[in-house]
């Protein structure tokens, strides 16, 4: 496979995963805003700053109104991480690797784009928001389904999966970075309504609210949430799960290319550490752990690029 194609596949998956993650975060924030006394502004600004678009936003808008924020996150083409920009880039990448995708995968991507472009042509009003967001998340699910169901599980598939899980690990880490730590000091008393809803926003953003409740029978305490998001091997957005997949896909590549790679060694190391410590040690500093893993994850992305001749367009 062409190195450039590997790069396009990797980033196509990253952009799509990112668009889904942002849609989920908006869903969670929206849910929170509706069940709050205030308008939940803080929640919106966190999403903007977490996607690294704070400057662009403040240059364009004077006020942080719900309408401004929603439109900025969903459809502003000046915002490189708006859902519209991301799906556009994913589709452009898909077009450039059209020959590597099955018809069904390409169709799901192209239809996502067409649906997104149509839904976001005009400013989104709040009444349409739930349907728009559901559409975006559904598009992502269809893509995933077509991928698993119709693609050969070969190197093309591996690069796509690597993109997905690198992006997903990054997302989970960043949400924890911005949220979890703010929460800790006030988390002494479990069950205060403020805390409860913040936990809920975080878990909902990671599509894990229900599954966490089901596993823990509704008991929310900071340590179990942290353990769940970092170590739980069953949870598809935990760091452990992401690294299991990253390692697997790199092993596949290593086997089929009959070669050893720095990226595989790095991923194995991270995975081993996660695998052998199954809970947050009270002594490890959570914030450092998270910051450290954000860096490691970025580094791994670069190592993959250099190991496999991926080049940036």
């Amino acid at each position, binding site marked *: *496979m*062409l190195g450039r194609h*590997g790069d396009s596949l990797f980033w196509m998956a990253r952009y799509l995963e990112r668009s889904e993650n942002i849609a989920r975060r908006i869903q969670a924030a929206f849910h929170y805003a509706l069940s709050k006394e205030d308008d939940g502004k803080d929640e919106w600004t966190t999403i903007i700053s977490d996607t690294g678009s704070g400057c662009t936003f403040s240059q364009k808008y004077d006020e942080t109104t719900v309408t401004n924020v929603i439109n900025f996150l969903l459809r502003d083409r000046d915002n490189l991480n708006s859902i519209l920009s991301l799906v556009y880039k994913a589709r452009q990448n898909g*077009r450039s690797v059209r020959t590597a995708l099955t*018809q069904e995968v390409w169709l799901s991507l*192209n239809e996502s784009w*067409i649906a997104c472009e149509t839904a976001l042509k005009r400013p989104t009003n709040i009444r349409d928001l739930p349907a728009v967001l559901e559409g975006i998340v559904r598009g992502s699910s269809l893509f995933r389904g077509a991928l698993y169901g119709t693609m050969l599980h070969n190197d093309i598939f591996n690069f796509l999966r690597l993109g997905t899980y690198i992006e997903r690990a990054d997302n989970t880490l960043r949400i924890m970075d911005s949220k979890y730590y703010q929460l800790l000091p006030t988390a002494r008393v479990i069950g205060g309504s403020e805390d409860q809803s913040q936990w809920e926003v975080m878990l909902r953003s990671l599509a894990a609210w229900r599954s966490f409740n089901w596993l823990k029978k509704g008991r929310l305490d900071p340590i179990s949430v942290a353990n769940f998001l970092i170590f739980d091997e069953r949870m598809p957005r935990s760091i452990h799960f992401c690294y299991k997949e990253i390692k697997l896909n790199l092993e596949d590549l290593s086997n089929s290319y009959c*070669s050893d790679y720095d990226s595989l060694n790095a991923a194995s190391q991270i995975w081993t550490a996660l695998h052998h410590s199954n809970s947050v040690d009270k002594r490890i500093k959570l914030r450092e752990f998270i910051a450290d893993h954000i860096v490691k994850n970025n580094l791994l992305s670069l190592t993959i690029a250099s190991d*496999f*001749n991926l080049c940036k367009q």
Partner: protein
Amino acid sequence: MFDEMMGFEGETGRATYKNLSDWLDDQDLKKLSKESVKAEEMFRRVGITFNVYGQKEAEERLIPFDLIPRILSADEWRVLERGIKQRVSAINAFLCDIYNEQEIISAGIIPAELIHRNEAFLPQMCGFTPLGGVYTHVVGVDIVRTGPEDFFVLEDNARVPSGVSYMLENRSTMQHMFPELFTTHQIRPINNYPKELFESLVACANSHIESPNVALLTPGIHNSAYYEHSFLADEMGIELIQGSDLEIYDGKVVIRTTKGTEVVDIIYRRIDDNFLDPLSFDPNSLLGAPGLFDAYRSRAVILANAPGSGISDDKAIYSYIPEIIKFYMGEKPLLKNIPTWRCADKQNLTYVLENLNELVVKEVHGSGGYGMLVGPAASKRELSEFTRKLRANPAKYVAQPTLALSTVPTLTKNGLAPRHVDLRPFVLVSPNEIKVTPGGLTRVALKKGSLVVNSSQGGGTKDTWVLRA
């Protein structure tokens, strides 16, 4: 005016279209129009679009697809096929001569300056004959018609002809929408084109290479024909590469892959000569690869079509094609040329200026229907503008009479109406044979009375059937 279904005015319909005409009588045209909207939705879903230059980056357009097919009888096709083969053989012989002995110039048939001062002539190709002796691996010959037996060649596209993906997609759309028509007509298949293209390219390679590695070189996703590039690469099962994927390493042409590198033997390139190699041609080009042309001259790789092939489809050379056929083939041309006035010639220029409102004027190096004048349809301002242009730079233009192009019934808002068409059959050339795919791309001018069929100018396409008997 000749209509391919009805015949000349007053006639009651031609035999070739009998079955289709009966079928149309049974159709509810309103329903058909709805079907046609469905077909276009399908094209958009699949992403069969082309980019329009000068429009917003994200602008992708559909080429309007007309549901009413265009039909050619077996006899008509036989004439076309023989004529096209003759023409394409002559073009290849001409290219080989022009880049080697130049006997046609010595014989006084073509003036030397017409070649040497021509932008499309590449001195870098002199003294080099491509592997297999093939210059134009793929040709699209544009043909128009004015009567039952009157076919004219409008243009020979010998550089990087496009449109073949529409020929193929149009057919599969028709089969999908109206399977019944394929049981009442004996239609020759075209769907093997990608396989045949692949085999035709591979046949040019050195015989000691066991299974030559073929790749398609595209300028990238912003090119107007990108969909076609990806479609063909996909159908042939070959890599779709860009210049940035290529490296010249140790005299070999390699592509950078996730495993390391891989040698390429044949490049079906869909970028123009000028952009192939910044070291040999346009130094600012980022689309090609430095050193690619040298590698080509040392026979490390085959480029299809050969650089410099454009000298044969130039609109000024076009007028010499009948002589070119006589010179190399010793035969009378089977297909007619349209009479062409080269404006570089003083007498011609005078004639053209005097009769501008009856002529079609084209740029010698133009394409895509840009920068041309259709005299009878032009406004006073356009006419005077072209008078000025012609006086200022006569060698840049040729003029032709305005032909009464044939029409084919086309679905419009007000039911069926005749619209002008042309035809681009696709020709594959290998050292062993010349193959013309039975069919081609029929382009149709959707505006009433319009003669401009180019997709960039709002033209549409039709499925084109060649009948078995």
